[in-house]
């Protein structure tokens, strides 16, 4: 997997950065459904270090997805603040929010959310279009990224013609399209076989180490957890634990 650094990342300088790239301070999220209220997050506070590889673990219903939405700028908290690059995202106007989602954060959803009517390469080129990149340049870059995830030969296929694992890789490629600073991944290796899963984890690790990309992944994959810098546990809308992988080895049986 040849990594064309110039093509892929411009102005990237890992060493020049430090500090927290994302901070969530006492975030609450309440969903109102008729008369009842659902408290998805009850005061979650998260500090994410720039350039780290963070894994988030938690049972279903723990508020994991909600937290993801918050720190990714997809939703606004009912209470509390979220800072991305020291900027309070609740203060952003629609243009800035759109820019954030386009250029700064790359999203990988558990259900891929690929646009079914477009081919793979068109899916990867779409965020580039929103970033103002067009034509032959964007096509070249898209092909390169598809190569990185091992799908170079399937550029013209539609998502419906591909397996779950392949679609997931297209989703990963799309998230990388605009060279984001932050990668938010929801179960990125769930449908991948062992070998491909390892390749993807290696890719994430490389992005972190060489280019200072912050990778935040929700996962149950042991291989991923072992490669992370930190592991965060969320339960009942709050962060219960933050550990490093070596501290976690003792609880291997509890992962599932």
């Amino acid at each position, binding site marked *: 997997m040849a990594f064309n650094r110039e093509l892929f990342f411009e102005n990237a300088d890992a060493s*020049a950065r430090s500090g927290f790239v994302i901070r969530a301070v006492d975030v609450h999220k309440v969903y109102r459904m008729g008369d009842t209220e659902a408290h998805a997050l009850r005061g979650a506070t998260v500090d994410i270090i720039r350039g780290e590889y963070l894994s988030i673990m938690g049972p279903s219903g723990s508020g994991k997805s909600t937290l993801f*939405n918050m720190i990714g700028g*997809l939703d606004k908290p009912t209470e509390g603040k979220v800072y991305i690059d020291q900027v309070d995202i609740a203060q952003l106007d629609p243009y800035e929010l759109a820019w954030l989602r386009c250029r700064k954060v790359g999203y990988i959803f558990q259900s891929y*959310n690929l646009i079914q009517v477009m081919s793979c390469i068109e899916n990867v080129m779409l965020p580039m279009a*929103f970033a103002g990149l067009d034509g032959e340049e964007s096509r070249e870059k898209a092909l390169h990224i598809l190569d990185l995830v091992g799908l170079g030969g399937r550029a013209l296929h539609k998502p419906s013609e591909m397996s779950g694992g392949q679609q997931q890789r297209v989703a990963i490629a799309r998230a990388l399209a605009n060279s984001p600073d932050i990668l938010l991944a929801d179960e990125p290796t769930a449908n991948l076989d062992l070998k491909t899963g390892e390749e993807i984890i290696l890719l994430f690790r490389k992005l972190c180490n060489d280019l200072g990309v912050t990778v935040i992944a929700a996962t149950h994959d042991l291989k991923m957890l072992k490669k992370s810098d930190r592991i965060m546990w969320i339960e009942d809308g709050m962060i219960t634990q933050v550990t490093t992988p070596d501290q976690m080895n003792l609880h291997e049986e509890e992962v599932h």
Partner: protein
Amino acid sequence: MREQIGRQVRLPMSRALQIAIQGIRIRLGRSLVTVSGVVLGIAFLMSNVAGQLISSSLAREKETRQIVTLMESLTQREVGSASGKILAVAVCGAMNRTEQLFLDRLDAMPFEAIRITGGRTKRGVSCTPQNVGAGAYLLVVLGQDAAAPHALGDLTRGMTRIGMLDAVESRTYAGQAPEGVKRDLLFGPETEQQMARMQEKAEQAKFRTIWVAVISLLVTIISISNALLMSVTERIREIGTMKCLGALSSFIRRLFLIESALVGFAGSVVGMLLGALIPILIYGWIFGFGLMFQELPYLRLTLSCAGCVVVGTVLSMTAAIYPANFAARMVPASALRSNV
């Protein structure tokens, strides 16, 4: 180092157009449902408009035919059942179009025989003015000459019943009128009343078609709106995804408006062509294509065609406003959470 937080640029219209066309092409099946709604609505509107235009341009011809029908019914009233009776027709001078048409109608009536002087019909037997009336039940005098060259006594000789219908009120005859000649006009005050009544009915029909056209346009708008809302709901995840990739709300709105404009335009053109074709075919068949194409008000027809296309497109875009806004205002998180 990349800037802290930048501002997303608005994408050019061409980009939105591109993605919109792609979307329609791939969803052609479902777009066809929306399109057919527009086609039907505009076809209906156009057929009414074109029908009115053509009908009014043929107004003279229509009036002529109405008069002829009245003349025919008057004749039938005079004659009762035509079978077994002989008709005598005297033509004095040149006949106008109304009389010619009337003569054709007489020819088609089930008379035993038609005897005619000075004119030609399919069934008519040519006679001299002196013996045209032999055995005839009714005498009809056509032609526009105010002074008839023949005497009434000659024309009515040998008739079983002395009844006559004259096309011209002021016609004078040579010689003395024989006893008991009852002369009625083919077109008199009574028929004028009937004409007025027919006009009134036509006016009412016109009003009714306008009303129906308005209702049908409203139905069209509602059906387009409904189809578009269904389309938006179906594409909730797609819209949420696009917003996650950096699409501005205005872009999403523009996307749906462009889609509806394209679909509306295409549907309007097809509807306009269909709608114009139907009255052309019908009126052409009734009145004859030659006459109709001669009388067609081409300028007004072209303008109404263009007008209908504009109406259809504007209607589609209007119907799309609510669905487009709904799509544009979606929060990505809730859009992606949806189970559609």
